[in-house]
């Protein structure tokens, strides 16, 4: 009766050799192609460095002003603008300005990148049923896989640093924008689509003049979620070499610096609130004439 209480297992030797084979080939891959992989990501690295420099080296009043202006154009609300300014001042007064800038730069670049590839993927997913079904599964896996697990191959291939951190953040944060682009297009009123067909729209006319504009509020909700998830990832990403507020939190955990942890944690929350308010207010403004809300 022994077999009932001990789960029958594949021979440990076989398992070991499978693991060795996979890890081994990954290692060979890195050894042989490491340089070319690094070269491939070199432009991305430069872009990330450029963004970080711009935002970190700019005079702080200018950064505050710029973010306040973005808040104004997105939300058209004095309340939101004031909240943004107060939040930034508080972060600065706590001595976290340089780290906050690094974090903001990472989150912004990761979000822009996610938008740039997530929206086209969402459109593809919507247009081709087969692609959609496959993508759905991939997204499900991505969203349930603990992020630590896919940090491993990223680090194996790219080592530690800005680029792998960025990639990890993008992988973690991109699913909502893909999903909500697809959903937004699917939710467009059937009769309006029929009208587009009846007036002789080509596929691309229908997409750009009807489907995308009407899906915009939903897509905006996806962008909002993507930003929030990118921010949520900054602590984990700091484990593989991303600097900023996340790294401070990580150090605080390692050394049991409670106050440092709290301060940096609040700074992350503050940035989250800023981005959340701005993107949500913009989303609501978009919805004004676009019918149903899906938030």
């Amino acid at each position, binding site marked *: 009766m022994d077999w009932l209480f001990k789960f029958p297992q594949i021979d440990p030797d076989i398992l070991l050799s499978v693991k060795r084979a996979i890890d081994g080939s990954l290692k060979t891959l890195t050894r042989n192609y490491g340089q070319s992989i690094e070269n491939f990501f070199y432009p991305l690295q430069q872009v990330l460095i450029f963004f970080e420099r711009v935002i970190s080296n700019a005079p702080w009043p200018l950064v505050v002003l710029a973010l306040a202006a973005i808040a104004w154009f997105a939300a058209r609300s004095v309340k939101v603008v004031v909240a943004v300014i107060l939040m930034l001042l508080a972060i600065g007064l706590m001595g976290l300005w340089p780290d906050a800038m690094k974090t903001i730069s990472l989150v912004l670049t990761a979000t822009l990148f996610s938008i740039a590839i997530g929206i086209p993927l969402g459109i593809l997913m919507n247009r081709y049923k087969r692609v959609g079904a496959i993508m759905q599964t991939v997204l499900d896996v991505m969203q349930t896989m603990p992020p630590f697990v896919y940090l491993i191959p990223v680090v194996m291939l790219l080592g530690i640093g800005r680029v792998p951190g960025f990639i990890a953040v993008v992988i973690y944060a991109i699913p909502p924008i893909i999903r909500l682009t697809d959903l937004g297009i699917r939710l467009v*009123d059937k*009769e*309006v689509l*029929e*009208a587009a*067909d*009846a*007036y*002789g*729209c*080509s596929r691309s*006319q229908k997409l750009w*003049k*009807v489907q995308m*504009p*009407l899906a*915009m509020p939903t897509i905006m909700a996806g962008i909002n979620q993507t930003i929030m998830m990118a921010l949520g990832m900054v602590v984990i990403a700091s484990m593989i070499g991303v600097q900023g507020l996340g790294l401070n939190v990580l150090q605080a955990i390692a050394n049991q610096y409670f106050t440092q942890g709290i301060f940096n944690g609040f700074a992350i929350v503050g940035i989250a609130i800023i981005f959340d308010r701005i993107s949500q207010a913009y989303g609501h403004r978009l919805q004004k*004439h*676009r*019918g149903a809300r899906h938030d």
Partner: protein
Amino acid sequence: MTKSSTSIEIRDLYKIFGSAPERFVSAVKNGMSKTELGKTHGHILGLNNINITMPAGKIQVVMGLSGSGKSTLIRHINRLIEPTSGSILIDGRNVLEMNELELREFRRNNTAMVFQRFALLPHRTVIDNVTFGLEIRGVEKGRARETGMRWIERVGLHGFENRYPDELSGGMQQRVGLARALSNDASILLMDEAYSALDPLIRTDMQTMLLDLQKELKKTIVFITHDLDEALRLGDNIVILRDGSIIQQGDAQDILLRPADDYIRRFIKDVNRARFIKVDAVMEAMPKQAPKSAPRLRSGTSLEVAAVELSKAGQDSALVTDAAGAPLGIVSLRQITAALASEDVG
């Protein structure tokens, strides 16, 4: 603004909804009913042996209860729905033989459609909605705007061109829908229950506007409705659908005076017959000696008006004359009352 109009011929049209519709065409042609097709084979009979000739420049009404196949039928004309079998000839050209590009051009230039729930683009202003069809066709912006403004004015929306659809009432939104369709300058206008979502009073206004416009535009209009009053008021020709089949075709007089079956009789039971039946339909041939001093009624006068005229004149019968005044026949109060009372008059 006007364009020489276009006739629409629908020949032997069948539409079966389901996973393998071709398998059941011949069974349906041999008389399988909608119920049987649905119950035993899980397919829905959308349209069954439809033959209609829609003359150029007239308003063709298609009437029937909900689910009778009206929307399915009108969507075959611009091929938003593919038929299972049959043909649709527009000025002799078979819509079903067009390839994708030809079909797109056909939809852009020859047809325009008005929808029950308006189907406006909510993120665009009135003027940008109205010029949508022109924009799709690639008409230059300034010219499109000019055309659009003209139609906005024509449908009574002057001053609203920069509003958004959600700022307008239902009736006004449908005016936008109509202006969008008219801006296209297509010879065929497809209206799928265009007025069904509107309040009765506004609906009557919109009907009047359509009739006024049509006097001038002479488009081939296919107008779908489930409302008999609307059908009688607008239709030069009326087709009545039930379960995807045509049960009667004809003008208002035919339907009211010679209903094809009990289904139609039930339909017309509550209609104001006096308003829609015309003296022409009930008059008798001129007797040898025309009664002197009888009042004269123009051909096309409704029984409602005729009865008032007769009682005002204190006479029993009146002469029906053509536009030039030449007598066509004679109509009496007795005939009028008979036509109003009974449902089947000769």
